[in-house]
C-alpha cells in the first residue's frame, strides 16, 4: 500500500529553488485547514525509475505541537505528496 498522501501546496519558486510555504489538508471534520511550513531542514533530488522528484524534510505546527513531515514534489506531473521514507 502506498504511503503517499496527495496534498495541496503553496510554494515559492525563486532563482531555481523551490520552497514549500503552506500545505492545505482536510481535517476529520471535513474542513480544509491551511498549515504553514515551519522550517525546511534539508531537501534532496532523486531520479528513481526516471521520475525526477524533490523531497523536502520540514516541520509544521499542528495543535501547538511540532511535527516533522516529508513533502515530495514530482516535477513532471507537478504533484505534491506527504510521504515517508
Amino acid at each position, binding site marked *: *500500500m*502506498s*504511503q*503517499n*498522501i*496527495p*496534498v495541496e501546496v503553496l510554494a515559492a519558486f525563486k532563482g531555481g529553488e523551490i520552497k514549500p510555504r503552506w500545505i492545505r*489538508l*482536510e*481535517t*476529520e471534520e*471535513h474542513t480544509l*485547514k491551511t498549515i504553514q511550513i515551519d522550517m525546511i531542514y534539508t531537501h534532496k533530488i*532523486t*531520479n*528513481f*525509475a*526516471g*521520475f525526477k*522528484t524533490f523531497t523536502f524534510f520540514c516541520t509544521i505546527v*499542528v*495543535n501547538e505541537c511540532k*511535527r516533522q*513531515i516529508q513533502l515530495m514534489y*514530482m516535477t513532471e506531473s507537478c*504533484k505534491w*505528496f*506527504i*510521504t*515517508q*521514507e
Partner: protein
Amino acid sequence: MEKIIFHIDVNSAFLSWEAVYRKKILKDTGADLRDIVSAVGGDKEKRHGIILAKSIPAKKYNILTGESIMEALQKCPDLVIVPPHYKLYERCSDAFREILAEYAPVIEVYSIDEVWCDMTGTLGVHGFPVALANQIKDKIFNELGFSVNIGISSNKVLAKMASDFKKPNMVHTLFPNEISTKMWPLPVRDLFYVGRATEKKLKNMGITTIGELANTDLSILKSHFKMHGEVIWNYANGNHCTEITNIVPANKGYGNSTTVAFDVDNLRDAKLVLLALCEQVCARLRKDNVYAEIISIEFSDYLFGHTSHQKRILTVTNTTNEFYRHVVDLFVECWDRTPLRKIGVRGSHVVSEALQQFNLFDGDKYLKSHEVDLAIDSMRARYGRDAIMRAAFINGSINHMTGGISADKNGETEYVGGTDECRKIFQ
C-alpha cells in the same frame, strides 16, 4: 587499438522497474518484489497470461519467462503476479540510456533493457574498463534504483555472453584469452543465437557445451545447419566483427498481431479484428511515410495450429481501406472456420516512394481514401487514438486499433491516497 565493448543488461528488467517504482516513488509498504517470489505477468482474462519477467527468488522454483501464468502458479502457488506498465518501462529505459550517454560515445540499443556501448579510446578519459564499468553500474543503482550486469570484451557477442554470467549487479570480462576458461564450459544453450531447436539438434550430434561446439569441424555444422552453423561456430570461438552503430536500421516490415479475448468463430468478428489490425499497421506505415508491397496474414487456432498466407499487390499502398480489402481476400482464401485465438497482419517490402497505378474508374477513390486517412491520423495524433473510430466498433468488444501495446498496459499506476490518509497528520 583493441576494441573495448560494454554490454549492459538490466537484471530482471520489468520486475526491477516495477519494484523501484513501488518502493521509491509510491513508497509502498509491502515487500520488495525483487526479494520475494514474484513475476510480472499479463492478464489471464484477456488470454495474455504469460510471465514477462520474474524475480531471482522465482528462478529457484524454475518459473520461466514466456510460460503461462497457470503453469507458473502450479510450480509456486504463492507467486505474486503484478500487471505490466509499459510506459514506466520506457521511462526507466530512457533514464538508463541517458546515464550511459554520459560515458559512451556510441550506444547501440539492442532491446528495451540491453545496450552495447563502444568504449574504445576512452581509457584516457574514464580510466580502466573494469573500474569504469563498476562506476557506471553503481551510478545506475544509486540514481535510478535498479541493478545492471555489465559484460566487457572486444566484440559484441563476447560482451553479451559476459553480461549473462553471474547476476545480479556484477561486472564480468570475457576477452578472447578467457574464452576457453569462462565460456567453453557453459552449456551450448547459453550461447547467443542458440535456441531450443538448435540445442536439440546439437545434443543429437553429441554437442552439449560451447567448447564442444567451438571445436567441432565447421563443415559438419554447415552440413546440418547451413549458414546458421557457421554463425554459431564463429560465436562459440568468439569471432564477431560487427561495428556498434547508433543508426537505427529502417523497418523492413510493419506488422501487428493480437490474441483475442474470445475464440473468433465467425467471419464478422474476424473481419473486425482484421480491420482493427489494419488501422494500426497502416497508421504506422503512414507515420513513416512508406508503402507496403507484400501483404500477409497469420493466425493461430484454438488448438495452436498456425497458418499464414501472403500476396504481392499490383501497386504499393498504405491506405487502410485498400490494405484491409487485400487482407480480407487473403483471410477468406485460407480460413476453414476453425475458431481462432490469435490473428496478425503484416505489410512488407516497404518502399518510400509510391508509384500507384490507378484503376481507370477508381483513381479518385484511392486519393480520397488516402486524404481521409491522413486527416484521421492527424486527429488521433492531436486528441488521442480514440478520438475517432469506425462505426462498426461502437459498443463492441473489439478495440478499434488493435496490436502493439494496448491502452490498459500503457497506463501508469495511479497514486493512491486521499482525504482519509490526510487526517493522519492531525492525529
